[in-house]
């Protein structure tokens, strides 16, 4: 058995050295694949706060992922086509600057999460799952019918957005941006889990009575977690759209919401690095087995089945039995 911390360090090493190795061997595709995994990891780390720590299963996190994509897409589209975004009451132009896009994305996703959360968190269990799914589907159909921004065809962005001092079109440089963001998110998430807020959120999953008896507002706790969770997933959506230089309604699809949950289950629910491990495994399986057969999801199904049956804590739980949480 290994310690969870050692596994995390190993995963970090993989994240950093595989792309560097690919760079030396001139394999840009591998770098792009790793970038994809890193972006999915950010999305799932966000979801893990709500699902793993808070214990409310959102089946609609694609709403934030897609919103992030569209915030980036719309801002960049206006910029590349020299069309002003808003003319009245103040003049707002589109932008190709990544940091500005990220800030707007985080704000917009947090706002959307606040609205969805305020309504959805009144319910629990399967109703919560369904209501979050419903919100994501609303976003999906709204985006397909919004013809100003491509409707079903989506928006193409010709050139990747800018980051001061970097050439973002270079795969290894764009990977570095995404990877640093993942590391920052993981750092803050690690602190958050151990903070008073994290302790309370973790306890609220296990006993609502307990948390209220010591004076915490259960709903505020959940809503705050949901907003943070949505904001992180939203940010990853902006990066994903930038990676593909394309955004379409499929970023709102329920399959994607489900995949985020799958990442977490594979890696380990509620574990800091669980979603990262899950996203890495998913993306590589998709590439390796997906190359052999179009029906690679069957194999994914078997893996999921095995994990759910034999190790509740996902890969992390299987490898780090000692820390595993036995109920």
């Amino acid at each position: 058995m290994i310690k969870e911390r050692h596994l995390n360090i190993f995963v970090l090493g993989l994240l950093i050295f595989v792309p560097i190795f690919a760079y030396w061997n001139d394999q840009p595709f591998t770098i792009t694949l790793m970038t994809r995994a890193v972006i999915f990891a950010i999305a799932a780390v966000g979801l893990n706060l709500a699902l793993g720590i808070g214990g409310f299963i959102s089946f609609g996190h694609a709403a934030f992922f897609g919103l992030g994509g569209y915030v980036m897409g719309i801002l960049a589209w206006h910029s590349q086509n020299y069309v002003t975004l808003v003319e009245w009451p103040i003049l707002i132009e589109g932008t190709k600057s990544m940091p500005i896009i990220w800030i707007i994305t985080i704000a917009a996703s947090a706002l959307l999460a606040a609205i969805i959360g305020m309504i959805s968190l009144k319910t629990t269990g399967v109703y919560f799952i369904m209501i979050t799914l419903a919100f994501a589907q609303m976003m999906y159909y709204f985006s397909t019918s919004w013809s100003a921004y491509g409707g079903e065809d989506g928006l193409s962005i010709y050139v990747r957005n800018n980051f001061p001092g970097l050439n973002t079109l270079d795969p290894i440089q764009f990977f570095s941006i995404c990877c640093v963001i993942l590391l920052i998110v993981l750092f803050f998430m690690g602190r958050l889990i151990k903070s008073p807020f994290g302790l309370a959120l973790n306890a609220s999953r296990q006993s609502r009575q307990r948390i209220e008896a010591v004076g915490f507002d259960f709903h505020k706790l959940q809503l705050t977690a949901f907003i943070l969770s949505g904001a992180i997933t939203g940010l990853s959506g902006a990066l994903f759209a930038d990676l593909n230089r394309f955004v379409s309604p499929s970023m709102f699809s329920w399959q994607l919401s489900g995949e985020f949950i799958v990442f977490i289950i594979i890696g380990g629910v509620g574990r800091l690095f669980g979603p990262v491990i899950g996203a890495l495994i998913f993306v590589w399986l998709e590439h390796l087995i997906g190359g052999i057969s179009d029906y690679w999801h069957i194999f994914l199904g078997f893996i999921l089945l095995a994990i759910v049956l034999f190790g509740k804590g996902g890969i992390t739980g299987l490898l780090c039995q000692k820390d595993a949480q036995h109920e």
Partner: protein
Amino acid sequence: MSNPILEANKLCKTFGSLVAVQDVSIDIHKDEIHAVIGPNGAGKSTLISQICGSLSSDKGSVFLLGRDITNLPTEKRASLGIGRTFQISALAKEDTVLENAILGSVGASGKHWRFFNPVLKNSILRDEAESCLELVGLKDLINLKTATLSHGQLRLLEVAIALTLKPKVFIMDEPMAGLGSDGTKQLTEFLDKLRERAPILLVEHDMDAVFALANRITVLDYGRVIASDNASSIKKDPEVQKAYLGEG
């Protein structure tokens, strides 16, 4: 007589056609243990839930230190000074004993919205939690996962968390339930001293413990108060004996 710390006036609660609690008034004064007894289904747990806020009352009012808390949610009542322990332990079982206790210190400190600094490294909160665990005798178990504790230890942890809240009044729902005779004896001795910190509203089935501890006793039957007096008078009350003590 001084003003009561906690006062409930004519509380009522019905579930459909079932009258669970009817016009129940109860008060708790400084330094006392006020026990509530009654057969199963007499409305004891409902009464506690109404006082603590997990159930709303159809009628009546609750005052804590003269302040009307009837319409406040549970968490507000807790932060104003109601320290509750549960009949069926409500604990974060996957967390350690210390984490459970420190949750109480965080709750009582009012610093709920801290997102960055590790709570276990906060020496003020940690000392607070550890001293409360030491009081109930769980100091040696602080790093154990709560799920591995024995039933009796879980009950003690419940009490320790209530202690971290520095409540104005303790409300204990059957703290002795499921304890062995040694455990009951220990907890009885502990509660005896605890009343000096804050008075206790004690719901309990163990009659020996009740008569050893209670200054006053209120007897409920079918949701109504059938007697409320000091412990020695209650023991002699014929109606009480008929309704409850005789059966037991």
